[in-house]
């Protein structure tokens, strides 16, 4: 299935070629886990700090669970960041 992967801040350079505005369309298996994707794009797991599916936070325990993603979802990942 197709999902949108967004990698931000220092993770941006790990996106596949053709990414635009820090986002790329990727193909994944229906039973994929978030950590499968995190590993596939060589994002060190400790840097996958803020992991959002369609804007909703996903805690670490759910990242090895298949079935968290559906066709057309957006997965967005940040390293630890903050602002004000």
């Amino acid at each position, binding site marked *: 299935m197709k999902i949108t992967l967004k990698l931000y801040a220092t993770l941006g350079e790990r996106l596949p070629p053709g990414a635009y505005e820090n986002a790329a369309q990727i193909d994944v298996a229906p039973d994929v886990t978030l950590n499968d994707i995190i590993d596939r794009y060589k994002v060190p797991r400790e840097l996958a700090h*803020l992991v959002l599916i369609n804007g909703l936070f996903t805690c670490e325990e759910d990242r090895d669970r298949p079935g968290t993603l559906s066709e057309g979802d957006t997965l967005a990942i940040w390293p630890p960041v*903050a602002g004000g």
Partner: protein
Amino acid sequence: MAWTGKILRVDLTKGSVDVEPLNMEWAQAYLGQRGLATKYLVEEIDPKCDALGPDNKLIMATGPLTGTMASTGGRYSVICKSPLTGAVACSNSGGFIGAEMKNAGWDMIIFEGKAPQPVYLHIENDKAQLLPADEIWGTSVWATDEWLHKRHQDPALRIAAVGRSAEQGCLYSVVINDLHRAAGRSGVGTVMASKNLKAVAVRGTLGVGNIKDPARFMKETAEAKQILAENAVTGQGLPTFGTQVLMNVINEIGAMPTRNMREVQFEGAHKISAEAMAEPRKTDGKPNLTTNAGCFGCTIACGRISTIDRTHFTIENKPQYWGNSGGLEYEAAWAMGSDTGVDDLDAVTYANFVCNEDGVDPISFGATVAAAMELYENGHITDKETGGVAFKFGSAEALAKAVELVATGEGFGKDLGLGSKLLCEKYGQPDLSMTVKGQEFPAYDPRGIQGMGLAYATSNRGACHLRGYTVASEVLGIPEKTDPLVTEGKAGLVKAFQDATAAFDSSGLCIFTSFAWTLENVAPQLDAACEGAWSPENLAELGERVWNLEREFNLKAGLTAADDTLPKRLTTEKANTGPAEGKVSGLSEMLPEYYELRGWTKDGQLTKETRQRLGL
């Protein structure tokens, strides 16, 4: 002791400058900077006074760690009654002038009265004098800065000044120091200008001595710096991307106030984000961001230095803007970007430069322009009022024109200088003003981050993110992650953030250290530097005392529980997209519990027990 123990009292009416000892008993109870200066303000002015009259006072205050070797120990605050809100104002700034003031031997400068003619204060260590400012009155902060450096033939002079916007009465004018650092909120610059005080120029070479236990202080500050360096946020995230890294985060979670908070996500967010600032421009091949920068003694260095493409319409033929200058922080980028619907990074950067040049708060300015755009699109104001400028959402031209008009107080700039609340009232649409207690919102929509709704409604200086930044927990997971979409548990979270922040703000340290430090890391540094026993517990209590002191000032000024509220839009109009879709702010679910936790009555008054417990 870390405090210098000395205050400079400047009576502008009489033209006198006097030295007096710092009240050390109060310093034990209120520490410094925000807390201690608020104590002086509360004791010395009538809270009902006219904020722009001679009875208001303006205090520039350092903290005990300002000017020391503690990381980020360069902060100072400007405290007075606010003309924008009628509440207490306390605006914190970095840069270098706070440390310079301390190195000149002063914990605080208290300005009172009003000078008959424009003046500036020149300080060289223990010598301080008021000098005529006629030649710089009517000029920008940048021109004033240059003139003062030349006049005193001292490149190391540190300068805080107000620009033309403040002189013209714009109610959200700031005090700029070191060219692009600002004591930014609640119109503290407007108060300074109302006293005919154009600038403060300081040279301090005495050093900050008086450290209680110097060897331990070196050890504690070194250990604390190590924590900042090793933390991913303060060691890497903030220096590399600045606060602007939040643009895409907050947009993704659906809490990005857009077009005067009609919407919660901005389609142009990426174009004005930290990621975009780092990308080479198509036009000239250079990125907007040149480098990062740090304030005095800071080992984080989150500041942005930027350039605009020279062929961009805003600066074509204006070489004064062609060089590097203070770039966008998230708050400025949000307010002048997504809240106005403008996604032109260089135009927003230009507006930021002008805000620094003439001392304008970019948050209040952007939010007021957003309100004006909604008024314009709804037909409540027309080309007649705007002088022919089409104030349409998304118009970079309108944004650029607006900032020029507010900077100089010309034409429609006078209306815009009223701030969103008075502007919307003037044109008969008070509900279109996105303000609390008359102050414009910062960059987090309370429908998507519920704790922030309570933080805004109860903030003692009106809508503000820096009084209780629960975004850290609700979005960023610092110190631990909570769910931004629920109201449960938020009353306690808001109170804890508010109290801890008040302690940080009274110390001389930057609040951004709190992404890596807690009061557990601040206390040992203070304890090694200052007389007294400083523990995390008594710092939290001190923060609570400061919070309640500010609250009391506001109640005496005439504010009530009815002012602890949000604009109707946020409690009745549902978020239209994103994770918060269908939600409004649940303020009413959180407020009673918050009052209870604070030890206040149901109508928001301090109880006798609370006053006694905190020694008020």
